């Protein structure tokens, strides 16, 4: 529907919808194993041994091949922030905490939401990764499972 919102100058308002069919390509396994096996799969470079989660099918150090490895589900928060606003596609209860976590053995950080009281989150907090079926509207589209972090009480 095109609407005229002003005539001096002539200003029209219209919506534009785009429907995408996107491929998860070589990281498909991450999402399928998350949903079907309850596992977090990272990749490890066969040459230099670096471990990547989120997974990198090609090693960024040497462009060599990587192979899939199951990641442990415990880690440490290296960066976080408490969000008081969220993007349009998100319908979470505000505020919520977003954190980048170093899972044990990983050379990269995995972003995720930290469940629970935001005031208890600190740099260096230990967390455990959990998997669940997402609430309607809290995760994009067709992913059947969601992962999130839970603080490990001292």
């Amino acid at each position, binding site marked *: 529907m095109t609407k005229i919102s*002003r005539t001096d*100058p002539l*200003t029209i308002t219209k919506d*534009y919808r785009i429907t995408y069919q996107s491929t*998860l390509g070589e*990281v498909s396994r991450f999402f399928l194993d998350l949903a079907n096996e309850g596992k977090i799969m990272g990749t490890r470079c066969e040459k230099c041994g670096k471990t990547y989660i*989120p997974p990198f099918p090609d090693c*960024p150090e040497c462009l060599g091949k990587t192979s899939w490895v199951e990641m442990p589900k415990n880690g440490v928060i*290296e*960066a*976080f*922030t*408490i*969000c*008081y*606003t*969220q*993007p*349009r*596609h*998100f319908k*979470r209860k505000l*505020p919520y905490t*977003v954190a*980048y976590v*170093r899972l044990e053995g990983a050379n*990269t*950080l*995995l*972003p*995720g*939401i930290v469940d629970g009281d*935001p005031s208890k989150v600190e*740099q260096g907090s230990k967390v455990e990764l959990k998997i669940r079926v997402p609430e309607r509207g809290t*995760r*994009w*589209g067709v*992913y059947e499972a*969601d992962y999130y972090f839970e603080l490990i009480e001292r």
Partner: protein
Amino acid sequence: MGKVAIVGAGLTRFSASRYDASQEEMVAEAMRQAAENMGMTWNDLRNEVDMGVGAYCSDFFNQQLKFGATIHDYLGLCPKSNIRVEAVGATGAQAIRTGYAFIAASTLYDVIAVLSWEKMSEVSYEQSLDFLGRNLDLDFEYYPVGVTLPTVHGMMAQLHMKKFGTSREQIAKIAVKNRKNALNNPFVDFGKKMAVKDILISKPLFSPLRELDFAPASDGAAVLIMTSEDKAKKFTDTPIWISGTGCGTDNFIYRRTADDIPILASTRVAAEQAYKMAGISNPMKELDCAEVYDMSTIYEIMAYESLGFCGKGEGGKLIEDGATENGGELPVNVAGGCFGAGTALAAIGVKQAVEMFWQLRGEADKRLKSGAQVQDAEKGLINAESGYGVKSVVHILEK
């Protein structure tokens, strides 16, 4: 002196919404001003230009693709060459760097017009945040976890405070300084006298940052006329030379660590390249002023450190000491930066060059207002950034 000079410049008004002018009209406005300031007719200037470099991010904001071709055509520059660059907030600076490359290569282009503009207001603020959020990883950051660009700034501030002891007040002082400085810039809308407490009581967004820690979105256009060394004197007695240019890139957050997230590695790399070319070893002493990309308060603090104005973690102290106020040791964003003009993505990178051009020629008090002039400024730095620093560009301009 460098092989490439800036000989002319023009700006439009930067506003939350320039509904009064189409994109073509905004660029024409800036071009007309450039011609007028150069004492030329539009037609004469147009005939002198060999090539245009288009700088805009509009594709999504305006739904017109290849908009640069439309603008180039509208300004009567066909059949001359044109190229378009894009790098979110660093676009304008990339365009200047590309103009530099085409001139310094000594092929066929001696006079280049950098044509930059942005009209973010055609979409709602919420929609524009969505567009900017897609600069992150969609499958692991944006869609599943809702990480957006300001989210990353929040995390950077969080880490900067923890690691270096930077205080919330020091961070807020950036917004206070730049909004106050914007009152000296007749081209921008967001100048305002504010206090630290105003920032600290504004709506929380991404801890520890709040609404007034972020620059608003805006529309605007800016034009720069660049020439080779040989042609420069034809246009002006005081060309401003680009004596250094540098560019760097940085990883996505998941490939970084708590130690390097509050540091702008790309900016450091870009600055090193530019300083090397310009023969600068002590920026604080050798530079007279700087324009950095203050899309958020914390970003300017991190820029101070990565540009070598102070040591690692000392950015908070630098703003607190007043060193970056006009009259201080190295005035930064003396015309208001992004807090003053809004983040009209591509146009800001060129606007920085326009204002620095006027600054170094001693015209800032005339073209802007007297409070914007840095006394005896001869060498300046301009720096524009993409997102949270995935691309950084630095230029050194000197008389």
